[in-house]
């Protein structure tokens, strides 16, 4: 027994590996797994929905991911030439121009594998991509020194350039670059058909469709040039903006939350009875200092400094089937996120929102989801809706998650 050989599987300085997991609806190609759509072996069958997290192999460590309506963007902070990969729907060139291999003059309408997106950078080996964001048919890419790149549908000016009548967005090579802001842009957010930009100084710019007031510029028309927002956020240092549907939320450094846009589902009913708000309004909630906010299609969620999660709006909010709508934020009990007498120091670290579902990540790296389970987007392994937070089993510690309409992408660190 003493003479048996000793095996070493992991050394003392073994680094934790970064992995990407995807789950949800496969047929649009948004998961980046081509064998689910076009099986490459005889025994494989096409898989319509991937109900549990599935590993996606990537060449580089992915630092930011965003899920749009049927497509996904992944980006890495590398200094290589290829920094952004896209997969899924490309009918409006929201993934740039993907040249077809069969016919060099045409582009792909559906991209089934993570394919590199060529960006017209001036210094491709120095600029780093910080963040990506996806909307219904357009996408935004934020770099550290070359501004913001926009691609995709521009019929409402959401790409920040003039609307051209009868423009053909499919198979378009055009990637627009936006540089004129009062200071460096640090966060980009895509709503359904509008775009929001947050700068280092704490100001917010918007462009795109405004029929619900989601641009917050005081009118209900479209804007094709990013314009600064005023209203209740004038002079306030905004530290986070969020939007996914037609409602927008912004959090200031003092813990206040401001909202504008669609209010048909009681998202802003605490300040006004109108269904559209086109100027940012302060939401006077007495729930404590707010750290992070996330906006969904019909419901909103905020995270306070103490680690409590509050939800309001319409839909499956996470407090059982009886709570369908509320205008005032309701707290989700921390015991549903794993807090108990045995584990008193578990608290929620991040909240994210998809179109009709929510996600929360705890400080232990566990992912909880709840909401409407559209085509398996929750990742619980079942196809039923989830009325209270449910743990998703991911083989690793979840660092961040991106929620889309019918799929989700998780960035995970391995345990050892």
């Amino acid at each position, binding site marked *: 027994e003493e003479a*048996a050989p000793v095996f070493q*599987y992991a050394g003392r300085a073994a680094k934790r590996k970064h992995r990407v997991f995807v789950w949800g609806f496969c047929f649009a190609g948004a998961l980046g797994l081509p064998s689910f759509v076009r099986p490459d072996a005889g025994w494989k069958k096409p898989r319509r929905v991937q109900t549990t997290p599935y590993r996606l192999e990537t060449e580089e460590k992915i630092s930011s991911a965003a899920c749009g309506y049927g497509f996904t963007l992944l980006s890495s902070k590398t200094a290589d030439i290829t920094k952004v990969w896209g997969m899924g729907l490309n009918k409006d060139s929201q993934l740039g121009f993907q040249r077809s291999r069969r016919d060099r003059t045409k582009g792909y309408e559906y991209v089934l594998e993570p394919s590199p997106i060529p960006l017209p950078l001036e210094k491709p080996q120095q600029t780093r991509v910080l963040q990506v964001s996806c909307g219904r048919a357009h996408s935004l890419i934020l770099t550290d020194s070359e501004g913001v790149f926009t691609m995709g549908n521009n019929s409402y000016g959401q790409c920040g350039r003039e609307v051209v009548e009868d423009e053909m967005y499919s198979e378009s090579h055009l990637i627009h670059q936006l540089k004129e802001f009062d200071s460096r842009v640090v966060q980009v957010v895509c709503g359904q058909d509008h775009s929001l930009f947050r700068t280092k100084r704490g100001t917010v710019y918007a462009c795109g469709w405004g029929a619900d007031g989601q641009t917050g510029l005081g009118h209900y028309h479209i804007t094709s040039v990013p314009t600064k927002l005023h209203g209740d956020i004038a002079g306030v240092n905004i530290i986070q903006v969020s939007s996914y549907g037609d409602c927008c939320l912004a959090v200031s450094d003092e813990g206040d939350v401001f909202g504008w846009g669609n209010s048909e589902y009681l998202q802003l009913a605490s300040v006004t009875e109108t269904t559209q708000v086109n100027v940012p309004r302060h939401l006077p909630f007495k729930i404590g200092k707010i750290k992070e906010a996330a906006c969904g299609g019909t419901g909103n969620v905020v995270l306070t400094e103490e680690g409590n999660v509050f939800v309001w709006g319409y839909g499956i909010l996470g407090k059982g*089937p009886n709570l369908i709508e509320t205008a005032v934020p309701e707290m989700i009990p921390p015991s549903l996120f794993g807090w108990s007498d045995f584990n008193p120091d578990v608290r929620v670290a991040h909240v994210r929102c998809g179109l009709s579902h929510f996600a929360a990540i705890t400080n232990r790296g566990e992912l909880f989801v709840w909401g409407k389970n559209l085509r398996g987007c929750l990742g619980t392994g079942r196809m039923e809706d989830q*009325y*209270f937070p449910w743990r998703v*089993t991911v083989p690793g510690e979840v660092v961040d998650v991106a929620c889309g309409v019918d799929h989700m992408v998780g960035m995970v660190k391995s*345990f050892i």
Partner: protein
Amino acid sequence: VRGPRFRRLKMGAGHRLDAKASGVFVLGIGHGNKLLTDLYHCHLTKVYTVGGLFGKATDDFSDTGKLVEKTTFDHITREKLERILAVIQGTNHKALLVHSNIDMKSQEAYELAVKGMIRPMEKSPPIITAIRCLQFTLPEFQLDIHCLHETQQYLRKIVHEIGLELKSSAVCTQVRRIRDGVFTLDDALLRTQWDLESIRNAIGNCKLKVQAEIEKTLG
């Protein structure tokens, strides 16, 4: 009339305990056997102290088995072990909710989940309700495990699987049951105390506790 006081006694045993394990073992005498079945239907959790050793893997997961493999373990830290334990607890918590046979879409399920009172009230696979690390000095470690419907061999298998997750291997050195439902180590009788007086006192002390628990759970 002269003769021994008790000639025949009907005895029943509670939850099984291995030959290699130690700790609290509940027995029922005479009319107590009916209480034993009621206690079984209460499905209360049991608490074990499980000792483990990193560095080797054996075929029956304990340190007296045949050696299968030896591995290094100097990369393991307490933080990594606690991460793995948190995940085990999370997946077992999910199993708890799934096997409790309550419809997840009902308001009742939400309310019970908030209070943390969801529990399977019938036969189910072994579930760990809570697990944490008590001591950690390489290569040995000790875990405190609260579980339902388990066997001691299952706990030894969990120790082996923890070793595998940490990219090393582990064997179980000690399994000791500290609590079985309402009975704790303080109520248990030592080998030296197996005589009529102590047994009678012990039964008297536990009577109220058992009755209260059965009433609370089975109504």
